[in-house]
């Protein structure tokens, strides 16, 4: 019986997606009855899931160790906010009053997509030069890009500069977050279970062998960066319209590391694990607020201990191939 269900699920991923979208809608409709603090947490979880799953595509499946994911998030956040704050009011003013709510929703979707595309462009810019690099160098390069993006935003006065951008309209709600998470997971899993996925894994396991076999490793690496960055941008857009005020300091190296920890904890290349890790690492700080000063210490020790004892992550149910060892 379980097998039948499994096979149906496998054959109808789109059905799952639809179900998830409907569930998100349901959540939103029920949101009036749920404590706002918990809604807050759910939204945070959703955003972190998107970030972690998108980073997992780059780091976990394709083996390109990116430490600048927060930079893509920043691009998406600023781009989406710029769309809703600057041309936004003028465009929405054109909508008849009775259609304002759906018009706003459609507009927000457009803003999120704009954020995602802007981030995807950034992903392309970061991905392209990094093709020549491996391992440590790639990591530092992506870190550098993340920092550069942050410094650039800090210097753009029209986007608030160091003060940050305030007064972003509060468009994010539980529906958008869960729906976006569902779409992101769907997209990543579909990609991974296709020929592209084979390409990603090949690049991760042994790039030289993959090249020797005629695979265009460049193409796969760029796709991974672009798709990963796109969703990070969407997450950024959602984040901006949730906190209502963003500033460059919130997208620094530490933020990137927090996402990296989720990916490592969940197991690189293990989407389900990464989702679980994202949920766990969003909930834990909330429950342990009084121990917050120890949080980063615990995270760092976690990283070390995980690498020493269980590099495949905490939630590896099936054996995922470990990143290739070098002689």
């Amino acid at each position, binding site marked *: 019986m379980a097998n039948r269900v499994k096979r149906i699920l496998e054959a109808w991923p789109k059905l799952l997606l639809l179900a998830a979208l409907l569930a998100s809608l349901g959540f939103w409709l029920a949101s009036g009855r749920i404590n706002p603090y918990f809604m807050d947490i759910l939204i945070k979880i959703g955003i972190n899931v998107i970030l972690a799953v998108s980073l997992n595509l780059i780091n976990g499946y394709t083996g390109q160790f990116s430490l600048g994911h927060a930079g893509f998030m920043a691009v998406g956040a600023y781009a989406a906010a710029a769309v809703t704050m600057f041309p936004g009011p003028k465009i929405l003013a054109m909508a008849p009053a009775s259609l304002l709510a759906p018009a706003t929703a459609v507009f927000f979707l457009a803003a999120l997509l704009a954020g995602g595309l802007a981030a995807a462009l950034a992903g392309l810019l970061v991905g392209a030069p990094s093709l020549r690099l491996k391992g440590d160098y790639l990591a530092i390069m992506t870190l550098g890009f993340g920092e550069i993006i942050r410094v650039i935003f800090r210097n753009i006065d029209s986007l608030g500069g160091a003060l940050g951008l305030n007064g972003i309209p509060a468009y994010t709600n539980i529906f958008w977050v869960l729906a976006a998470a569902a779409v992101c997971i769907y997209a990543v899993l579909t990609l991974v279970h296709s020929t592209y996925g084979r390409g990603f894994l090949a690049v991760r396991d042994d790039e030289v062998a993959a090249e020797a076999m005629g695979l265009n490793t460049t193409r796969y690496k760029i796709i991974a960066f672009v798709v990963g960055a796109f969703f990070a941008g969407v997450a950024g857009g959602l984040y901006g319209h949730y906190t209502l005020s963003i500033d460059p300091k919130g997208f620094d190296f530490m933020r990137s590391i927090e996402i990296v920890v989720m990916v490592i904890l969940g197991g690189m290349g293990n989407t389900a694990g990464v989702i679980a890790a994202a949920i766990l690492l969003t909930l834990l700080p909330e429950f342990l607020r009084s121990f917050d000063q120890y949080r980063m210490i615990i995270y760092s020790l976690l990283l070390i201990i995980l690498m*020493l004892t269980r590099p495949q992550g905490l939630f590896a149910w099936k054996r995922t191939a470990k990143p290739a060892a070098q002689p």
Partner: protein
Amino acid sequence: MIVFLQQLINGLSVGAVYALIALGYTMVYGILRFINFAHSDVFMVGAFCGFYFGRWETGHSLAGGLLVMVMAMAVCALLGIIIERLAYRPLRGSSNLAVLITAIGVSLFLENAGQLVFGADPKPFPPLIPERNFTSPAGLTISSNQLLVFAVTGVLLIALQWIVMRTKIGTAMRAVAFNHQAAALMGINVDLIVSFTFGLGSALAAAGGILYGLNYPSIDPYMGVLPGLKAFVAAVLGGIGNIPGAALGGLLLGLIETFVKGSRLSTYSDAIAFAVLILILLFRPAGLLGKFQVEKV
């Protein structure tokens, strides 16, 4: 013209500190082919050692100050060796990625533990040696602390080159850097050499930390992050694995940064270091003095 010369002095003194930190990065990379992310935090620990030891040194003499520096170097050398033993050695055979992640973990741990132990707010670094300012007739100024940086960096650089080129252990280090399996076959105790390298690099970081603290007497647990990243850029600029290259890279980066800071683009100065890194990696990955390494399969 005066402004230009003064900026030159400023740039070189900033660069000398980067050079000192860069030496540690480059040595470890040369031997083990990995970036020790935690290096910048050993630098920070060195500065804090100076802060605490400095309290005992009430004499405020040059000799006292140097003694504090030596003690800090010893403590950090030990710290470096312990880190290597506990966190990096067990991963010697596994992928580069795993060690990188572990290094990040160690770095974060030191920073956050430092925050817990020392407190996150900046502490005033004690003046370990008497300070004087020197002004030339033309109006150029240099402080005794800046001179100390040049002197110490120069001495340590020469000492390091001598150790690596002229001593037995230095030869062993070079052998391990070249091919550690072959070195092991020749009877070299690779573990010992690696420990020694870490110890040496960490001691240099500690010296850098003290000098940095003397010049910028405001230390906090995150003080190593940005200088560390810039020093890494400096090491890559000069050719990673190459000792004189690290020094050259450090000085160059210091100069570039200072001139940018004195210009219209001053708020981009942090980004400039990374831009330099990206440019170097794209166009001359071996660095200025390095040799291009072909990846063999």
